[in-house]
């Protein structure tokens, strides 16, 4: 599923990033890699950005909806 469709507080795994080089490189820099465990903590009002916590790297970032649409995740059952 797309990151924007993921429920809050559910452990997820990054399956793929579909964005262009700009988005991919920035996410890599911030420590977000394919296979990482993440969780959507919250979101801003009126379709605001998502607050995403990377459990692997222990970092939190805010992602605009446009960026979040390009990140595919799957539920992490581990």
């Amino acid at each position, binding site marked *: 599923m797309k990151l924007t469709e993921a429920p809050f507080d559910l452990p997820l795994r990054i399956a793929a990033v579909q964005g262009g080089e*700009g*988005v991919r490189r920035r996410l*890599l820099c911030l*420590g977000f890699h394919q296979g990482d465990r993440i969780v959507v903590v919250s979101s801003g*009002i009126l379709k605001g*950005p998502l607050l995403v916590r990377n459990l692997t790297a222990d970092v939190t970032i*805010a992602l*605009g909806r446009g*960026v979040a649409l390009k990140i595919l995740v799957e539920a992490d059952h581990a």
Partner: protein
Amino acid sequence: MRSDPRPPSVVFIGQPNCGKSTLFNAIAGPKAEVSNFPGTTTKHTHSDVKVGGRTLSVIDLPGTYSLVPFDPAEKVAYGHLFGEKPDLIVNVLDASTLSRGLELTLELVEMRRPMIVALNMVDLAEKKGLEIDPSRLERSLGVPVVTTIASHGRGIKELLDKAFDVLDRGWTVPRHGWSADVQAKLDELTRLLPADLCAGMDDIFAAVKLVETGHLACDGLLTELEPAFKADLDRIRAELEAIRGVPAYEVISAERHHLALKISEDAGRLRHGARLTWDMKVDDVIMHPVFGYLFMAAIFTLFFLIIFKVGSPLETLLLKPLGALKIWLAARLGSGLGFYLADGLLQGVGGGIAIVLPYFIPLLLLMAFLEDVGYLARAGYLLDTFMHRIGLHGKSVSPFILGFGCNVPAVVATRILESRRDRIITSLLIPFIPCSARTTIILALVAFYLGPFWALGFYVINMAVVAILGWALSRLVKAESPGLILEIPSLKVPSLLNIARKTRLQLKDFVGFAWPLLIAGSLVLSLVQYFGADRIINLVLSPLVAGGLGLPKDLGVTLVFGFLRKELSLIMMLQALGVDYKNLLSVISREQIMTFTIFVNFFIPCLSTFAILWREIGRRYAFLSVALSVGVALALSHLARLIF
């Protein structure tokens, strides 16, 4: 080494928010002239520090996530490490986000130049339940590791001792491992490497950089100089991509990521599971979809209250001696050219001291405080939704807030935005944010003569104008914006030293750039008055001023003043009309006051802002900004006339 006349250079590098500036301050002292605004440093500053009888030339690089020259800050770090070849690299590593920080550390290790890891903020990591064994980390990385808590000054001496030790005795940094398939490709590339292409570099490091930087570094140059090698490079990149199914730069990055995870798992021990720490509880409230906005509204209301409570008495206090000085000058110099020039100089210097600084310095201090605590990033997250409506995103929030103090540093601050499109739109909107000089006019004219609610309404309309313009501009400037990707650093106890340092850096743009222009503008105005050119200007402008705006034609010259110095418009208005402040209503109506304020507020960015726009986003957009302002000012003041 001691006989070398040039002191050894030590460069500090680390990811944003790793406590690098605090550590640097602890070593170089608060007086060191350094630049650290994320992404804005175009050159790095050396400062010589005497430690234990020896001199070190320390260099602070802007916080950087990686060594790929992707955003402006990274370009600085990259350029420095490759161009200047420092004698020692000190990599500041945030222990509380160990595995991510290690990705940069591994990149540095690949250079195989003398380096030390300063494992900083170990106290924060311990609070999170992470215990790190520095000796295990040292063994995995093959470089010395020193634990520090920069905010308490702990570990500084050990770090310096280690630095001298490495400088004196040298240290050979071993290579870190790669997966077998990636290693094979890198080895193949090193064999193909033209002899003098990457002279002086470790060859695996050179191969890695060639693969991962791609078009960001030397691809274009290679195509021209070494077309055969470039073809091999492209082939190897394609082979790497085929192995892992992701772009070549991502293959390299993933390698480091996995190694970093392995190292951090080996060196770190999680004492307890995820526990709610105080900052997470606070975050739940201040980033809450409802309470978060209420909290933010309260913070910013308080913010502006403090600024005006501090600024207004300061302004009065500072204006008094300036007024006395002017009278004294008039008595001494008479009314010749000398007096006019001295007065112009006084107005220019004094305007900066008495009108801008009393409001601007408190604003900068509070901004630096909010940034240091980590709140600005959170405000960016909360306001992203609204910024999105006007075609921008959350990162534009802090330049806008700065604009309330002075537009000039605000335009400079847009450099934190990654895309040129966002920089241009934000820079074009900043001149519409009422800076402290314009706020004094709004308060003196609208709040005093029409009432505080009118002034408040004025601000609301002003913000609406910014929103509408932003919406329109984002439809005109068509280019892709990458959208919001913003790190939310964990909340921190603020450091006074950091706040002072940030404030001083921001102030530099005002003092070094805007102020001299302000003084020059004042001198020009004095000359205009001395030679009686104001009458001619009034005559030329009278169709606009009297016909278009319905104001007394004597106010024409104050509009010119508005370009040179916004806040002088008020004083000039009184001079031009020949009345004092209290009797203003005897010569001009309330409606005219409103029209005048609207026009002066919106029309034309002041000279300093115009100059900084020219420097930052180019001549074309600087003139577009002028056209926009004049258009908006004419339209709005006309509208005001119709309504009243």
